[in-house]
């Protein structure tokens, strides 16, 4: 027998109480694990998404450039437009490698049950979207349409099929299906830019222009050159990541508040359990002291019991966090103003380390007072009131 096995056996005396305390710690650990996984995952997903667009700069008309940039990625309408002339001018600026025009529109279906998002794109856009894999082909004529993978699944359409868009009262030929990107791109209808301009009555207009540079170190100089064009706002992609992270700051603050409450409640539960167990065993501790245990031995025993609860709670919490990550991610997505492509919960060694470290620290703090109380029990307690 060791002092560790003694601590574990002590916890088995009140199995249900111990189990409930472990569960409390597990909930706190799972919350911590999930929130940290989200923090890491969201940042990575956002940077990946911005990197995968292949776009270094977003050009839009006056208004909030962040909104414009966000809409290029996410879909949505901007009531002001750039002219096609701007696309030619942007392409001619020194340092610009590629530039592609976007026209983005949303239309509610006639029954009002959903909103279809349409993305009119120029032939340059695939060069700006290196992560796109299209099954089938690029646009063949003005009647061609490419479907995002989610749209294709919902509409049960494949390459070669026809699709009738009720809101446009027009039938298109499905020439390609965009393979799943796990982002917003999966939910769009893609039309040739000229077709989109025609059906949305915005001939010669663009919502925004995505720009790829030859040399990203020249970003500032190219941005300055682009800003000399009239009625043009330019936002670098990297600034977009930063601003989006600021945009979700409120959501993160809310999540960290929930985490603090979970940790506090769990710590109190742990303190209560260990304190009760200490009060119940005064005579035992007295006896142990009587047979030679030093105050530190008693303190060690109580701290070990606390840590055993914490460790089991951590294992259960991390396993629960991993097991429920899909549901947790789905839940978190509802509160985010911006959702990048890919998984949002990405636990790594750092997340595990912080979860283990923080929960054990919580355990040690919660166990300090009860262990101190236990260590102060006099050997006389064992024999008093015999």
């Amino acid at each position: 027998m060791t002092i560790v096995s003694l601590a574990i056996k002590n916890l088995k005396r009140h199995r249900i109480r111990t189990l409930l305390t472990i569960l409390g710690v597990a909930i706190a650990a799972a919350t911590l694990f999930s929130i940290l996984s989200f923090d890491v995952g969201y940042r990575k997903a956002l940077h990946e998404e911005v990197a995968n667009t292949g776009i270094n700069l977003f050009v839009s008309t006056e208004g909030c450039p962040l909104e414009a940039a966000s809409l290029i990625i996410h879909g949505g309408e901007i009531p002001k437009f750039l002219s096609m002339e701007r696309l030619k001018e942007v392409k001619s600026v020194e340092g610009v490698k590629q530039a592609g025009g976007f026209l983005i529109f949303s239309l509610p279906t006639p029954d009002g049950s959903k909103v279809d998002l349409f993305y009119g794109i120029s032939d340059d856009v695939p060069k700006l979207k290196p992560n796109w894999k299209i099954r089938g082909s690029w646009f063949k004529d003005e009647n061609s349409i490419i479907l995002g993978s989610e749209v294709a699944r919902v509409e049960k359409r494949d390459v070669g099929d026809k699709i009738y868009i009720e809101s446009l009262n027009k039938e298109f030929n499905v020439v390609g299906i965009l393979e799943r990107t796990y982002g917003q791109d999966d939910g769009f209808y893609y039309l040739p830019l000229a077709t989109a301009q025609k059906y949305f009555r915005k001939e010669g207009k663009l919502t925004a222009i995505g720009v790829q540079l030859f040399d990203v170190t020249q970003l500032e100089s190219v941005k300055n050159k682009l800003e000399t064009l009239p009625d043009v706002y330019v936002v670098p992609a990297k600034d977009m990541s930063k601003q989006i992270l600021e945009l979700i700051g409120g959501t993160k603050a809310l999540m960290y508040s929930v985490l603090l409450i979970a940790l506090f409640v769990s710590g109190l539960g742990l303190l209560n359990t260990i304190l009760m167990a200490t009060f119940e065993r005064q005579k035992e501790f007295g006896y142990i002291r009587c047979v030679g245990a030093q105050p530190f031995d008693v303190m060690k025993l109580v701290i070990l019991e606390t840590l055993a609860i914490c460790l089991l709670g951590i294992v259960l919490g991390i396993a629960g966090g991993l097991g429920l990550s899909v549901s947790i991610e789905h839940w978190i997505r509802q509160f985010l103003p911006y959702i990048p492509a890919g998984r949002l919960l990405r636990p790594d060694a750092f997340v595990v380390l912080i979860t283990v470290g923080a929960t054990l620290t919580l355990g040690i703090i919660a166990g300090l007072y009860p262990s101190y109380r236990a260590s102060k029990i006099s050997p006389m307690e064992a024999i008093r009131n015999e």
Partner: protein
Amino acid sequence: MNNIVELKNVVKIYHRGDEELHPIDGIDLAVGEGDFVSIVGPSGSGKTTLLYLIGCVDTPTSGAVIIDAVKTSELKENDLARVRSGKIGFVFQQFFLLPTLTALENVELPALFSEHKAKEERARELLNVVGLSGREHHLPAHLSGGEMQRVAIARALINDPKLLLADEPTGNLDTANAEAIFGLFEKLSYRGLTIIAVTHNMELAGRAQIIRHLKDGRFVD
């Protein structure tokens, strides 16, 4: 023969409100190695307090307590704990067996807090000595009162103490089990262990080599 226990004019004073109590009031005692001593006396005579002082669980107000040549009345708490661990075994009326530990593990328990860590074999031997061979893996709930007290005696012996202190060890036992426990003490004393037992039972006390009568905090024999 060396004295394992020596008490020199030991006084213990307690205060209860304004009242001053003298449960031990100037006691001298010498107990040699291998002696089996019974301390008898009426309730409130100071028997248990005396046992606490000898067992280094309590300290005297004045006078000297010497255990195996160590003047324990001058030691600090941590050093007293070391003396208790290394030199003294305790047996109480309430057995203080941990309910989640088996008989074997209960016997091993004091060794966890001593310098001798691995004691399983020794614990088995001691269970054999107290007649509980084959009951090693029984939980206290599955043992009778007499068996539990025998486990407690084996546990008191795990660190090879020089002195065994027993406070009303048969208080919770029937006559047959009480007889068996004192029989065991006789056997252990014969092997050289010094035993001091406090009891109300004069018949059992008579089985010790030495009987000391205590009244109002003083020996009266």
